[in-house]
């Protein structure tokens, strides 16, 4: 029964993909779209080979991943302490919450012109934009989680004579970990969306730039190759972060 379930979980999605490729082929054959605007499945397959041979796809992928890693890590490292602070100090919440909310609702893409003016085209601009996309959601989620840690844990911490630092590290932080991991997963997904957009406009390399480059060269086959890679890597990032939910000291948050 279990084995059957495993087969199902692979066979069913594969069937859906196969059906989509068939529909794709039919649309391509039908001639609804001009051939220059609609690549054939086989052409995309050839595009994969071409990109793999030149190695460009790989270097673009590494470039984009590097930028996301930098911007995202920077946002996590600064956003979590900021959120913890706001979660614990009522006055800090009152003071900063409106402005944090404002920036969270401001699309990071609106910053692109300034990013280019300030940081030019290169690594810095996309990293800056990714940082902006991740920082504010991380602050808000950390703050909300920290402010809602059950008071009974504070009582226990006091009973057992914990110092403020000890309480932060041994109580508050582990108490909010499950919510934090969920936030990190969502935010990393947003970062992956943003890096493509950022590189399309403010990049000279990376997957986003490759998309733009393929368009400019009218290489719709390569365009689809890039799209497939971007989507797959996004799924991969989420799967990787999902592993965090399996850590025993975090899993409790998902099993109630």
């Amino acid at each position, binding site marked *: 029964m279990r084995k059957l379930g495993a087969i199902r979980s692979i066979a069913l999605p594969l069937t859906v993909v196969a059906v989509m490729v068939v529909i794709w082929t039919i649309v391509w054959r039908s001639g609804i779209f001009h051939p220059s605007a609609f690549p054939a499945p086989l052409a995309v397959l050839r595009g994969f080979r071409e990109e793999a041979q030149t190695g460009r796809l790989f270097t673009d992928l590494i470039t984009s991943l590097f930028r996301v890693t930098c911007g995202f890590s920077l946002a996590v490292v600064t956003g979590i302490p900021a959120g913890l602070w706001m979660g614990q100090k009522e006055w800090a919440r009152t003071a900063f919450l409106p402005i944090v909310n404002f920036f969270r609702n401001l699309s990071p893409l609106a910053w692109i012109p300034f990013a280019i003016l300030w940081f030019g085209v290169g690594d810095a601009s996309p990293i800056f934009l990714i940082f902006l996309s991740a920082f504010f959601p991380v602050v808000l989620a950390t703050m909300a989680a920290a402010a809602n840690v*059950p008071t*009974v*844990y504070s*009582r*226990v911490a*006091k*009973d*057992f004579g914990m110092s403020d630092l000890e309480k932060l590290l041994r*109580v508050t932080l*582990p*108490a909010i*970990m499950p919510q934090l991991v969920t936030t990190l997963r969502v935010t990393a997904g947003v970062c992956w969306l943003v890096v493509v957009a950022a590189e399309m406009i403010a990049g000279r390399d990376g997957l986003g730039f490759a998309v733009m480059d393929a368009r400019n060269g009218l290489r719709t086959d390569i365009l689809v190759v890039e799209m497939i890679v971007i989507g797959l890597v996004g799924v991969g990032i989420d799967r990787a972060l999902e592993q965090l939910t399996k850590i*025993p*000291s*975090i*899993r*409790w*948050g998902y*099993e*109630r």
Partner: protein
Amino acid sequence: MTVSPLQLRHVSHSFGTLEVLRDLSIEVLHGEFMAIVGPSGCGKTTLLNLLSGFDHPTSGYIERKGKSRMVHQQDGLFPWQTVSENIALGLRHVKSEQERRRQVQELVSLIRLEGFENSYPHQLSGGMRQRVELARALAGPSDILLLDEPFSSLDYLTRLRMRQEVARILQERPRTVVLVTHDIEEAAQLADRVIGLGERPAQIRYELGLTTPRPRDPTHPEVVQAIRQILAELDVESDSGEYTTA
């Protein structure tokens, strides 16, 4: 003559305009098991928060000699820590890793949870979790044990068993105990002295002592007699609908 570890003198407490406790004077003797009984919302938990030092009374004076530990109604364990890690919370001062492990193991045996050392709270039943909380509160040096309706979230049979467990465990590790509960049967079976609080603002309505040494059966004549007495006390009050035992 030993000094009383817990003393309340004319303690009153209010939240804003809501008066919760009014002029309470209670003295808990060394090694005594005191039960404080009262209807829900009468300020029992407030009283425990004052006793543990988590809150300070609006007026009056509380003297606490020694370290106190609280067992909460439910979910007081850290869910991100295993049974062992939770129990070891009170043993952080123990330098030797080996000695710490030995003491944790001793407490795990005391609450009869061998084999669950590395389980997480969410993997345990409610009764097991409360036993772990008890063990955590008893780990390391402490003098006063505060029990905040520790069995109220458990089913009746588990509650009966937990009472026996507590009585047995306290024989091994004697503490001065204050139990807050709305379960008069529980109070009569476990305590040396029962203090009844009235509706908010809580004042002492009655007090009675039991002399039969612990642990006692719930059907022991003195326990039954005490329950009868408390019920009689409550009948004096107008609204006693809440006081049917389980």
